[in-house]
């Protein structure tokens, strides 16, 4: 079987050129980096790794009735703004303000549940408005023991565990672009879920890898995560 190429798919990550030497795997209607070399990337993830989850589904909802709408659909919602919760199916919900929520898809269902939320929303009288995030934001996953040290080189906010515990969200500037940083681990693996402007992610990806270099950081694929 011929290897998958990102160019065969309509939806592809803006980082696909930087991922030319990676092995790709199917993710819904698109592809995602499965792994880079032939070796097991698990130790790399534990130390310091960067993954591109841009092709995984994400969507936002905002409005006075957004919380009620999401509760009805079975989501657990964070108690306060700038907090986030992982759901039982592995997807995540971050609360960005009093009335705005960002939903991040799970790799376990290739983002299908969250993609269905975007497809199924309809405009109505209730104050619950869809915020499409698939084409506005890119989604990176920074993993391992050094995530706070890496971010300290790029960002003015204290993201060490004492000040930025699991479940915290920071909307701030990193490497001079706006980012949303969400501290939600994947299982036991320490992770920052980072969302940034999609058109700027090629720059941000390189800036992060540059900051990660002193900690032995490398890009990685999702195989070691599953």
């Amino acid at each position, binding site marked *: 079987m011929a290897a998958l190429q990102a160019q065969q798919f309509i939806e592809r990550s803006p980082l696909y050129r930087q991922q030319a030497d990676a092995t790709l795997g199917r993710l819904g209607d698109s592809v995602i980096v499965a792994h880079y070399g032939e070796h097991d990337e698990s130790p790399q993830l534990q130390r310091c790794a960067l993954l591109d989850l841009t092709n995984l589904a994400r969507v936002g909802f905002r409005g006075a009735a957004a919380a009620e709408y999401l509760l009805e659909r079975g989501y657990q919602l964070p108690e306060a703004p*700038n907090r986030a919760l992982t759901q039982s199916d592995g997807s995540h919900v971050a609360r960005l303000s009093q009335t705005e929520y960002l939903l991040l898809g799970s790799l376990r269902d290739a983002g299908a549940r969250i993609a269905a939320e975007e497809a199924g929303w309809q405009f109505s009288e209730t104050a619950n408005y869809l915020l499409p995030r698939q084409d506005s934001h890119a989604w990176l996953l920074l993993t391992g023991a050094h995530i706070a040290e890496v971010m300290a080189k790029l960002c*003015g*906010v204290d993201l060490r565990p004492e000040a930025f515990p699991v479940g915290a969200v920071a*909307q701030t*500037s990193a490497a001079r672009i*706006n980012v*949303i940083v969400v501290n939600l681990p994947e299982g036991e693996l320490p992770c920052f879920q980072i969302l940034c402007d999609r058109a700027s992610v090629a720059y941000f990806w390189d800036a992060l890898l540059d900051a990660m270099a002193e900690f032995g950081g490398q890009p990685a694929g999702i195989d070691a995560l599953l």
Partner: protein
Amino acid sequence: MKIMPCPLNGPRNISEFTYGGEFKQMPDPATCSDADWADYVFNSDNRAGLVVEWWMHNASSYWFLAERHTVTDEIVRTFDPKEIFTRRVDFAAPAQAREATV
């Protein structure tokens, strides 16, 4: 760097914020004169002293109000606009546009 306390996000570098102009009470657009409305839209007080201003936190697109001293540049207080805007502002249907006469 100067630090501004965002009511939603906490203390952040001032470079993360955008200035949005002086906070002004809006005259009733249905009853005020054109001169009053133009004054509201275009003119600034530019006062030396304690002022209330609109600011936005860029990363979260969150608009809030700040009390700032324009002489010392001290930020006295920042707060959510809900402190002032306690209920929805509805606008009456616009008056019939008058044909311009030449």
